[in-house]
């Protein structure tokens, strides 16, 4: 997937009512592209073999 440009980020943030300043947008684009790459890489894992875990650790009463 192509990286998101600052203008893409500006449109996304506006649609979600998230605040952006001129100084923020470029850095947020870098951060968001880093997330999208890192989370896309998770497809290499057998994700369908597990359910999302949101409970207590073993041993907890």
């Amino acid at each position, binding site marked *: 997937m192509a990286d998101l440009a600052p203008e893409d980020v500006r449109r996304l943030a506006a649609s979600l009512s*998230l605040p952006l*300043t001129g100084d923020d947008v470029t850095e*947020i684009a870098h951060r968001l592209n*880093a*997330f999208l790459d890192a989370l896309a890489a998770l497809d290499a894992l057998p994700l369908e073999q597990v*359910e999302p875990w949101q409970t207590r650790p073993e041993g*907890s*009463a």
Partner: protein
Amino acid sequence: MSPAGDDLAFAGTARQAALIREKRVSPVELVTTYLERIDRFDGRLRAFITICRASALAEAARAEADAAKGAWHGALHGIPFAVKDQVDTAGVLTTSGSALLRANVPRTDSTVVERLKAAGAILLGKLNLTEFALGGTIRFPYGQPRNPWNPEHDPGGSSSGSGIAAAAGLCSMTLGEDTGGSVRSPASYCGAVGLRPTWGRVSRHGCFPAAWSMDQIGPLTRTVEDAALVLGIIAGHDTRDPLTSRSAVPDYGAGLEGGVKGLRIGVVTELVDGADTHAEVRSAVREAARGLAGLGASAEDISLPHIHFAGAVFMALCDSEAAGRHKPWLATRPEEYDAGTRRRLVTAGLIPAVAVHRAARARALIREQVLAALGKFDLLLAPTSPHPAPAIASHTAPVTSKEDAAARFFGRRSYTTPASLTGVPAVSVPCGFTAAGLPIGLQLIGRPFAESTVLSAAHAWEQSAGLSTRRPALAAAGAAL
């Protein structure tokens, strides 16, 4: 002869409690010792946001009078403590490190503060942190916290002040909160002991949340013995935190001398030998593994290949939750956030839900891998951080690319977040110093609710290594550096 002055400040909580009990040191003397050190050093280190000078002295006088009458309050009678400013304290400013909460004064104590006070401890002050315990703060609204071993370097976060105060002898013991490493990282960078208990072992009631399924309060202290003492007081079920365990709280101090003989320790190769791991860190941690083997444990390499994903998975889950929590303030008061926090939260608000769901499944895989390893080994061993404390300036520079962002935000978090994602206990204990004099932290990760094993192994290492007697050479505030 009883220790006095700086020696008393560094004597450790358990020893100080014994000295008070033996009436060789008075609570007033102990509180005054720390207040004088705070006056000398904290203008530069900025560990504290609020100092409870008058109330601490009054409480100390009361503790002294009660001791004279034989009326002991508990195991921490007359011991001064300080807590991360994310944790509520009745009648005392609690900012979470943010300008947004600059006037927030809770009416009630958090459970952990309530329990420490019930054990006789005296609140000395509130400690600095990265904004809302999220990490990445560029401009700290209550002063830039600095590493006591080199003030140009980062003290770690998010419990920055807790690590500084414990390591610099500004307080007997402190509490921090660890979501993804926020107790262990400052312990590692500052040369203190930091314990993240099992998720659910300690109440989070009265603690500003970061991520509900990972937040956990824990002690930062000068010794493992002190961490065990404090954990025994703050642990246990709390009706005000329904996610706390009802399982009994063991006597952590009693098991401390158990040693490591017969323990099986897995050395996590991805974290010890990985390309991101600084050579001096790798060397010190490998030496610690050999040292523990020399004390009777077996140390064997183990590979946990999913662990590389832990940093990004953690941030996707933690930050998306935080973005949801902060949305109302982000929408109405964005300029009151530090720029680093605001960028982190807005970024998280833009991550697609399907990607967050993928991260939740990956968390389950990482958790399975860690728990399987803990089925084979009693403990997992790794560096707490891939590198010693970096220069403060390296944190505040703008992010210049997605590669820069990934390196800064995901890589180092893969060292501490496996325990967070799994919900298991982990301790950071000093295991050496770099040639430049910066501390290196050893991380020991245990099975759920096996804090006793984690602590006894850390204690055995600490006693063997003899590093807990080292003190940072501090410059008084205003002195030439």
